[in-house]
């Protein structure tokens, strides 16, 4: 068929499938052939699943032939970050410690998508257990940015972002604990949604920091993110922190927020020191586009922003040090050989199979929680967490949405920050506060720098205002074509 499949939205594809102008097999093969051709170069996937995908698509073809009811995502080629458990398919979480782990059950949000006839095309690379901002910490290999293969794709959902940018999947799943959906989306020139904490179930996803972790989706079109989120979201009895609030029909609300009179907050702290001038220019141009449509730009201040990194890199390692205790070589994953007793098994297994960044964060968290330091670090950071949350709440008394750059710079060269953990942590400065507060944010592409590397901005909403973010993002994509730019491979 002559239509470029990657340019179409899920609903346009579903319409072609219904009319018989496209078959699910053709839809799938478009993406599988690209994985086969380009993934050796990009290494977006730890485990591609082409055979499984072909098997599933046959079942969908049979349903179609027999006029049986089909799901809302029929044939959707879906890439899934390797920290989501996928029953029967290896889930390593990007770490050697889970090499060979075949989960006996699936994560709730993934299950909800395949129940609507989406098809898994592979498990994507990630920093181990999502600890990182470049995907270079992966226990397997670094993923390359499709716009420049000598550069990082961002992280930790770097495999998922690279897969969408390079048209290796139509939609991908990621998680955002401190920016891990938005930052790689920005660096790969695609869109990504970090919903409100608790909007999506965390069940069946390896835990990093349980009070921060937030599953979400990455795609080219905001309309696709709206539809997929509508299906993923909602209460899950298996996750006590998942919200009971009803899930709006996001995909039907894409024009529900008028731009005329919309108050957009521009936080000065997100445009300050350390933000690349080209990033600043393009993000301001995006805000001015909204202004031309009748929105009102309003300067605001979120004074505790720079402390976000310190709060985040105190609290998150604390939660990590507790969550990672389960990887002990006894019940699942790799185990050290020739150990003398149980405690020796723990020490040797963790010493041999945890990647350096895992050890580093476990050590930071253990230190901050240890006797004598708990009040100075954990309690103090939790108090500043309150201040950061309150600053956002106050801001939303005067503005409808906040607009800011996602990352201070575009994608940096592979290896540049890998031996300097603090420099790597500081790259999260514009994303972590959203997670500290638990707010929703949508990342969107808004241009390129002089090296043709993508630049992204984020729209931050008040709690559970995903519908507003999707509506604004959709309208932005109606006015621009940054989301339809693709890298030459």
């Amino acid at each position, binding site marked *: 068929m002559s239509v470029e499949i990657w340019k179409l939205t899920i609903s346009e594809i579903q319409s072609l499938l219904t009319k018989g102008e496209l078959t699910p097999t053709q839809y799938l093969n478009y993406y599988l052939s690209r994985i086969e051709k380009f993934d050796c170069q990009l290494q977006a996937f730890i485990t591609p699943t082409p055979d499984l995908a072909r098997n599933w698509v046959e079942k969908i073809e049979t349903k179609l032939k027999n006029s049986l009811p089909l799901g809302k995502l029929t044939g959707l080629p879906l890439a899934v970050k390797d920290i989501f458990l996928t029953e029967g398919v290896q889930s390593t979480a990007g770490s050697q410690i889970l090499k060979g782990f075949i*989960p006996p059950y699936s994560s709730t949000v993934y299950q909800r998508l395949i129940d609507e006839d989406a098809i898994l095309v592979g498990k994507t690379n990630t920093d181990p257990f999502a600890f990182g901002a470049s995907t270079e910490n992966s226990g397997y290999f670094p993923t390359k940015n499709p716009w420049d293969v000598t550069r990082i794709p961002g992280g930790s959902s770097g495999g998922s972002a690279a897969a969408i940018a390079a048209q290796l999947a139509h939609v991908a799943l990621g998680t955002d604990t401190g920016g891990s959906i938005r930052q790689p989306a920005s660096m790969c020139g695609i869109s990504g949604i970090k919903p409100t904490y608790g909007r999506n179930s965390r069940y069946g996803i390896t835990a990093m920091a349980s009070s921060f972790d937030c599953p979400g989706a990455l795609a080219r079109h905001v309309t696709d993110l709206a539809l997929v989120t509508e299906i993923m979201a909602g209460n899950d009895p298996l996750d006590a922190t998942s919200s009971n609030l009803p899930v709006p029909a996001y995909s039907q609300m894409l024009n529900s927020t008028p731009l005329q009179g919309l108050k957009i907050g521009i936080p000065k702290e997100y445009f300050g020191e350390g933000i690349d001038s080209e990033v600043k220019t393009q993000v301001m141009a995006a805000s001015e586009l909204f202004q031309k449509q009748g929105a009102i730009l309003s300067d605001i201040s979120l004074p505790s922003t720079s402390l976000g990194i*310190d709060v985040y890199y105190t609290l998150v390692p604390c939660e990590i040090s507790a969550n990672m205790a389960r990887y002990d070589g006894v019940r699942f994953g*790799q*185990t050290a050989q020739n150990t003398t007793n*149980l405690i020796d098994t723990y020490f040797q297994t963790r010493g041999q199979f945890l990647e350096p960044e895992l050890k580093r964060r476990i050590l930071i968290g253990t*230190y901050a929680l*240890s006797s004598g330091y708990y009040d100075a670090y954990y309690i103090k950071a939790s108090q*500043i967490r309150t201040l950061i949350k309150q600053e956002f709440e106050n801001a939303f008394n005067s503005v409808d949405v906040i607009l800011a750059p996602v990352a201070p710079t575009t994608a940096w060269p592979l290896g540049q920050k890998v031996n300097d953990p603090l420099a790597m942590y500081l790259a999260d400065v514009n994303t972590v506060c959203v997670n500290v507060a638990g707010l929703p944010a949508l990342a969107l592409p808004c241009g390129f720098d002089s090296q043709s590397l993508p630049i992204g901005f984020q729209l931050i909403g008040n709690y559970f205002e995903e519908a507003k973010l999707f509506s604004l993002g959709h309208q932005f994509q109606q006015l621009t074509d940054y989301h339809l730019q693709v890298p030459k491979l």
Partner: protein
Amino acid sequence: MSQITTATIAHIAKLARINLTPEETETYAGQLATVMEHVARINNVDTTAVTPTFQVTNNRSSFQTAPVSSQTLSSQKVLKNAPRHHDNYIVTQPSITK
């Protein structure tokens, strides 16, 4: 705040049950000192009378309304990923030795 030395790293690695090589201990001592020095800025903030935030959901006492026992895994499935198992048990190295 006290200095982070190789002895500090050795102590917390023991608490965290991780074997570290001498080279790793050295590297982490330097890196943790740098990171902790940066995050110690939080102690310059006046947080008198500020309540700490441990979760952002505003949920209070979330209880199960229906049993979820039907969704538990069979022991066969659970044991499948255990490095060593026998009958219905996971086998470990001895925890108490003479």
